[in-house]
């Protein structure tokens, strides 16, 4: 259950105009959840232990995606 690096984030830099009133939000991130990439769930998919499955909300490790506020310093 890694919380640090997730492959399910993308980001882009919004256009910065000369007269934009606020300090720039340099990076805008968005989520591409695991369900986008897996298709029909294959047989013998890796599983969490029962206790971790109850904690995370999924039995299947490839569907797990920990989320936290990406703007938090």
């Amino acid at each position, binding site marked *: 259950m890694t919380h640090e690096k997730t492959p399910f984030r993308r980001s882009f830099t919004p256009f910065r105009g000369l007269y934009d009133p606020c300090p720039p939000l340099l990076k805008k991130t968005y989520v591409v959840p695991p369900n986008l990439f897996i298709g029909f769930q294959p047989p013998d998919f890796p599983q969490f232990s029962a206790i971790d499955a109850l904690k*995370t*909300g999924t039995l299947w490790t490839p569907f797990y*995606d920990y989320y936290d506020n990406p703007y938090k310093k």
Partner: protein
Amino acid sequence: MWTYEKKLMYPVKVSTCNPTLAKYLMEQYGGADGELAAALRYLNQRYTIPDKVIGLLTDIGTEEFAHLEMIATMIYKLTKDATPEQLRKAGLAEHYVSHDSALFYNNAAGVPFTAAYIQAKGDPIADLYEDIAAEEKARATYQWIIDQSDDPDLNDGLRFLREREIVHSQRFREAVEIISEDRDQKKVF
């Protein structure tokens, strides 16, 4: 028919007295992409969906009510001991004058729930694609609530619910595969 288990799907713990979070959580209670909309949408669509995926809509629709119950518990815990003044500071005075601290199916901006939030087109692909979109919108809503909340215990429950949206979206995507395939058909070329 349903059986009811008298416990929450995932334990709800709130560690800070912050009624403003209750206001944000109402988006998931009575909002367009909330748990009520999800439950009603799936449990209604299942009558006219192909047989192979009726059970999926029943299961997910039922689980959405379990999620609704968790959201209700969070909102209740955050507001039950709040004074009228605290509710006013949390932006909930408008809610208070109509409902006291009772829960109601409003969104975060106080707009009451409407069946116009959901659809049943009767076309299986149209309905399942709506369901996939609904799950992604609910996932995003959980993300934005987590971004606004600094309560670690509340966020723990919200992360669980967000993960369930990912799994539900996956299952709806698989349902599309199931009803699209024609492997049972004999093909002559």
